[in-house]
C-alpha cells in the first residue's frame, strides 16, 4: 500500500471510523450463528455471580460476626449477626423519624403513641388534640412562600396546597412530604460530608468517582430487591432506596462547588485568621453555597422522582396511589396523583431556590412581634382552624371536611381525563394503531432483530475500536473489560435488547434536542424560554412520563421508547442551547462579515463550536434513556429491566440478579460515557476551548 495513503488514514478520524464500520460489517455477516461458536456468543462462565452476591448478603445477615444480643421476650442471650443488628437499627431509626413527622402533621394526639406505649393515650384520654387541618396547612404554605420571596411565591404555595387538599390528596401528599422531609436532610448531611471529604483528600475523590458513576447510572429498580433483603419492606426501605439515588448528585455538587472557590478566597480566609473548622464552616461551605443548595434542590427532585419507585418497597403516599391507579389502568386517577407530585415538586423547587437567595439584614431594628409576625399568624391560624374544625365536627355527619377531605370525596377531574383519553383513543384509534404497528414492524422489529443478530466479536470490535479511535489503548481496554463482564454472563441477549432500545431513544432524543435547540436557541430570548421549559419538564418525576404514552400506545416498546425519547430530549435540548450560547460573539461577527447564510452559519460556525457541549448533552441523554427504558419494565418490556423488575418477586437469588443486572446497565452507560467524553474533550482541545 502507498505510504501516503497510510498517513492519511492515521490523520483522519472519519477514515478510521469508516474502516472500523467496514470491519464491523464484515464480521457481522461472516460469523455464523451457532451456540458453540465463541465468536458468536461467549459462554456464560459468570453465571454464578448473582448467587454469590446473594450468599454474601445471606451470610452477612445471618452468619458473619455473631453478637450476643439480649432478647427481652425469652429473657436470654441470642446469637445474631452484627450486620443484621445494624440494618435493623437503621430501619427502626428511619421509620421512627418518618413516623414522627407524619403523625405530627396527620395524627394530632397520636404523636404521643410514637414516643410512649400504645396504651398510654387510651389511659389518659383527657389529653387530646386534633390533627393539623388542611386549612391551616394551606395558610402555612402561603405564609412560608410569602416569607421566602413575597406574594407570588406565597400564592404558589397556598394555591398548590389548596388544590391538593380540595382534590382529596391531602393525606397521601403529607405522607409523601414527610418522606421527603426526612430523606432530604439525610442525603444532605451524607452528601455534604462525603463531598467535603473528597474535596480535602484527593485520594478519596479518586475513589469516589467510579462509585458515584455506577450509583448514578444504575437503574433505580436494581436497588430495590437488595434493600428488601437487607431492610425489609416499609417507608424506611423506600427512604433508603431514595438516599442511595439522591446522595451522589449532592456529593458531586459539593465537590464541584468547593473546587470552584477561587484559591484567593481560601487564602483570604486564612489571612483573616480562620482556624480549620472556621475555614470550613465560615468560608468554604458558605462560598460554595449556591452549588450546595443546587445539590439540595436536586436531592428534593430525586426524592419526588423516587416516590413511585419507593412505593414498590412499601413507601406510602402519592407514589403508592399512582402505582395502584396505573396498575388498574385508571388514567385519570393516575394523572391526578402525578399532578400532585409535580405540584409538590414545583413548590419545593421554588421554595428551596428562594431560600438559597435569601439574605440577612444586620441593621434592621425590629420588635419581637415584627420579627416573628408570620410565625405568630401561622400559630393563630392553626388554633383558629383547629377550633373551627373541632366545633363543626357536629355539623357534618360522618366526614369532617374541615380536617381532611378524603380522596373519594374530593373534587376530581379524573373522569374528564378518562373521557378525553377514551375520545382520543376512539377517534385516533386507527391512525395511532397503524402508526404503532408501522413503528413496531418496520422500524423497531428489524432494529431489534439486527441487534440480536450481532456476533459478540463484532460488538466488541465496534465498541473497542471506537474507544481506541477517540481515546487510546487504555480507553479501549476499559470499554472492552466492562463489556466482557456482561458478555460472559447469561444475560447478553437481554443486554442487546436494552442497547437497542437505549440507542434508538438516544438517537431520536439527540436529534430532537439538537433540532429544537438549534431552532429556538439561536436567539437570546428563545434560548431562555426553551431553558425554562427544560427546567419545568425536569421537575416531572420520570414516572409521570409513562402515564400518557401507555394510553396512546398500549403496553409496547413504542410506549416506553416515546416516554424515553421525551424524557431524554430535555438534556439534549439544554446542552444544545448552552453549546450555541458558547459560540463567541466575535465569531458570529466574523461570519456575518464573511456573508454567511443562516444555514451556513449553523453548519460552519455554530455546530462545530457547540459540538463538544452538545456531545456532553448526548451523554446525559444516554443515562436518561436507559433509566426510562428500565423503568419501562414496569409496564412490560423484555430487556434487562424486565428481569430486574421480575427479581422483585424472586426470593432466592433476587437481590443478586437485580444488583448484577443493575451494574450491567450502568456499565453500558459508562462505556458510552467513556467514549463520548473522550471525544468531546478531544474536540474541545482541538478547538482550543478546553
Amino acid at each position, binding site marked *: 500500500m502507498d505510504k501516503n495513503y497510510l498517513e492519511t488514514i492515521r490523520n483522519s478520524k472519519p477514515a478510521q471510523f469508516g474502516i472500523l464500520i467496514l470491519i464491523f460489517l464484515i464480521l457481522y455477516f461472516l460469523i455464523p450463528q451457532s451456540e458453540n461458536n465463541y465468536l458468536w456468543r461467549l459462554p456464560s462462565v459468570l453465571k454464578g455471580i448473582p448467587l454469590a452476591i446473594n450468599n454474601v448478603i445471606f451470610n452477612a445477615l445471618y452468619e458473619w460476626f455473631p453478637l450476643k444480643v439480649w432478647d427481652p421476650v425469652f429473657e436470654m442471650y441470642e446469637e445474631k449477626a452484627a450486620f443484621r443488628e445494624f440494618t435493623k437499627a437503621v430501619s427502626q431509626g428511619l421509620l421512627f423519624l418518618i413516623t414522627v413527622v407524619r403523625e405530627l402533621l396527620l395524627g394530632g394526639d397520636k404523636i404521643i403513641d410514637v414516643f410512649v406505649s400504645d396504651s398510654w393515650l387510651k389511659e389518659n384520654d383527657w389529653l387530646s388534640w386534633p390533627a393539623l387541618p388542611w386549612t391551616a396547612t394551606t395558610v402555612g404554605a402561603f405564609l412560608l412562600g410569602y416569607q421566602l420571596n413575597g406574594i407570588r411565591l406565597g400564592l404558589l404555595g397556598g394555591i398548590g396546597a389548596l388544590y391538593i387538599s380540595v382534590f382529596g390528596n391531602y393525606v397521601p401528599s403529607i405522607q409523601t412530604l414527610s418522606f421527603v422531609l426526612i430523606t432530604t436532610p439525610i442525603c444532605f448531611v451524607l452528601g455534604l460530608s462525603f463531598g467535603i471529604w473528597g474535596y480535602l483528600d484527593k485520594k478519596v475523590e479518586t475513589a469516589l468517582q467510579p462509585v458515584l458513576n455506577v450509583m448514578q447510572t444504575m437503574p433505580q429498580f436494581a436497588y430495590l430487591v437488595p434493600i428488601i433483603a437487607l431492610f425489609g419492606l416499609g417507608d424506611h426501605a423506600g427512604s433508603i432506596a431514595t438516599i442511595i439515588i439522591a446522595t451522589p448528585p449532592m456529593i458531586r455538587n459539593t465537590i464541584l462547588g468547593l473546587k470552584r472557590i*477561587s484559591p*484567593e*478566597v481560601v*487564602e*483570604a*480566609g*486564612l*489571612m*483573616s*485568621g*480562620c*482556624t*480549620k473548622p*472556621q475555614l470550613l464552616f*465560615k*468560608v468554604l461551605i*458558605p*462560598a460554595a*453555597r449556591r452549588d450546595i443548595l443546587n445539590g439540595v434542590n436536586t436531592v428534593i427532585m430525586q426524592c419526588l422522582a423516587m416516590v413511585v419507585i419507593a412505593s414498590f418497597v412499601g413507601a406510602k403516599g402519592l407514589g403508592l396511589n399512582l402505582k395502584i391507579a396505573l396498575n388498574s389502568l385508571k388514567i385519570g386517577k393516575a394523572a391526578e396523583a402525578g399532578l400532585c407530585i409535580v405540584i409538590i415538586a414545583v413548590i419545593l423547587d421554588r421554595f428551596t431556590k428562594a431560600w438559597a437567595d435569601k*439574605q440577612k*439584614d*444586620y*441593621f434592621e431594628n425590629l420588635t419581637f412581634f415584627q420579627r416573628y409576625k408570620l410565625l405568630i399568624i401561622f400559630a393563630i391560624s392553626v388554633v383558629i382552624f383547629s377550633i373551627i374544625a373541632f366545633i363543626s365536627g357536629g355539623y357534618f355527619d360522618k366526614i369532617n371536611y374541615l380536617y381532611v377531605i378524603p380522596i373519594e370525596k374530593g373534587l376530581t377531574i379524573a373522569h374528564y381525563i378518562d373521557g378525553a383519553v377514551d375520545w382520543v383513543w376512539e377517534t385516533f384509534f386507527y391512525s395511532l394503531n397503524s402508526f404503532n404497528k408501522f413503528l413496531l414492524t418496520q422500524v423497531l422489529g428489524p432494529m431489534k432483530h439486527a441487534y440480536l443478530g450481532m456476533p459478540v466479536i463484532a460488538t466488541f470490535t465496534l465498541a473497542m475500536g471506537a474507544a481506541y479511535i477517540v481515546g487510546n489503548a487504555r480507553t479501549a481496554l476499559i470499554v472492552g473489560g466492562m463489556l466482557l463482564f456482561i458478555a460472559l454472563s447469561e444475560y447478553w441477549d437481554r443486554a442487546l435488547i436494552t442497547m437497542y432500545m437505549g440507542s434508538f431513544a438516544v438517537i431520536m432524543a439527540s436529534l430532537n434536542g439538537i433540532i429544537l435547540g438549534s431552532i429556538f436557541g439561536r436567539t437570546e430570548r428563545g434560548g431562555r424560554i426553551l431553558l425554562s421549559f427544560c427546567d419545568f419538564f425536569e421537575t416531572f418525576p420520570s414516572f409521570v412520563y409513562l402515564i400518557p404514552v401507555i394510553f396512546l400506545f398500549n403496553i409496547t416498546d413504542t410506549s416506553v421508547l416515546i416516554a424515553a425519547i421525551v424524557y431524554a430530549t430535555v438534556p439534549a435540548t439544554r446542552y444544545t442551547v448552552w453549546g450555541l450560547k458558547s459560540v463567541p460573539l466575535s465569531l458570529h461577527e466574523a461570519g456575518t462579515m464573511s456573508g454567511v447564510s443562516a444555514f451556513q452559519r449553523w453548519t460552519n460556525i455554530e455546530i462545530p463550536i457547540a459540538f463538544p457541549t452538545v456531545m456532553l448533552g448526548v451523554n446525559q441523554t444516554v443515562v436518561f434513556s436507559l433509566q426510562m427504558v428500565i423503568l419501562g419494565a414496569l409496564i412490560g418490556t423484555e430487556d434487562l429491566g424486565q428481569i430486574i423488575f421480575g427479581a422483585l418477586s424472586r426470593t432466592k437469588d433476587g437481590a443478586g440478579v437485580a444488583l448484577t443486572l443493575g451494574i450491567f446497565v450502568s456499565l453500558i452507560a459508562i462505556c458510552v460515557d467513556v467514549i463520548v467524553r473522550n471525544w468531546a474533550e478531544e474536540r474541545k482541545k482541538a478547538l482550543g476551548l478546553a
Partner: protein
Amino acid sequence: MSPTISCDSVYKIFGANANKLLADSNGSVDAKQFQEAGCIVGVNNASFDVEKGEMLVVMGLSGSGKSTLLRCISRLTDATAGKILVDGEDICLMNNKQLVELRREKMGMVFQNFALLPHKTVIENIAFPLQVKGVSTENSMYKALEMVELVGLKGRENYFPRELSGGQQQRVGIARSLAVEPDIWFLDEPFSALDPLIRKEMQDEFLRLQGVLNKTIMFVTHDFDEALRLADRIAIMKDGIIEQLDTPGNIVLNPATDYVKKFTEDVPREKVLKIESIMDPKDTNASENLKVSKDDIIESVAEKILNSKEIIKVIDPKDSSEVGSINPSKVIKVLFGG
C-alpha cells in the same frame, strides 16, 4: 531595632523531590536544571529585611516568583528552605495555632481579585476577621462601620460584592485587611485587576491611607510605574531571584543588571528621581532666595530651579538644615538626556 520582616536565604521549590534536590545543590539553584528534574523554582535564595513603617514593593513579571515570595512570608505556602523572621520570630517553625494567632493580630492581606466572600455583604466581609477572632457581633459591626468610612464606602454597607464595581470591591478588600489593625500589610497586585483611571485613583487613596496608618508594607506588582510611585524600596525579581533591591532613585540611576535596565530605560527620570539623588555637596555660592527639599521629585520643582538660573540650596524638610545644593545644569541633564 530589629527589622519587622527579615528573610534569610528563602527558597521555594515546587515538585515532588524538591527537598532532596535542594539539599544536593548546596544553595546554588539553577532553575533550568531543576526544571529538567521536574521541579519548578518559585523563589531562589531571597534575603532581605523590611524595616518598621517601610514600604517594600516587589516587582516582577508573571512567573517571576513575586507572589510566591509574598505567600511564603504570610505562610500561605511553606518555604522549602530558609528563615523568615517576623518581629524576630521564625514563622516557619510556628504551629497552626501560633500561625492563626499571628494572622489575627499582626497581618492583613489584600488580593489581586479581591477575594471577597461572595455570600457576605460589604459590612459582613469587613467584620469577618473580627468575627473569626471572637469579637462580639455588635463590636465587630461597629469597627467595620468605621472601616467602611475610612475607605469611603459609606452607604453601601449592605451591598453584596457582586453589586459593586472593581474599585469598590477592592476598597472592601482593603478595609477587611485593615479591620484587625495589623502591623504588617501584604498587598498582592491589589490594583492590577482595575482599569487605568481607577488604578491611579486607588494608588492615591492607598498613599493617603498609608500616610495616616504608617504600616509595614509588602506590596507586589508587575507594574514598574506603580512600584516607582509607591515604594520606599523596590525589589525586582526574575525567575525567583531578586535581581536588585534598592530605592526607586538608585534603581533608575544605577540598574544592577541588563534585565533591570530594560525596565528603567523608558522611565522619565524627572518623574521618579528626587532632588536628593542628583544634588551636589553644599555650595557657599548657593542663592539665598530659593530653597528646595531633598525629597522633592525633580519634575515638580524643575521650573522653579531653571527659572532661577542660579545654584540653589537643598534642605532636609525635617529640620530645614542645609544638606546640599543643586545646579540647574543637572536638572537640564535629567530632563533632556545625557
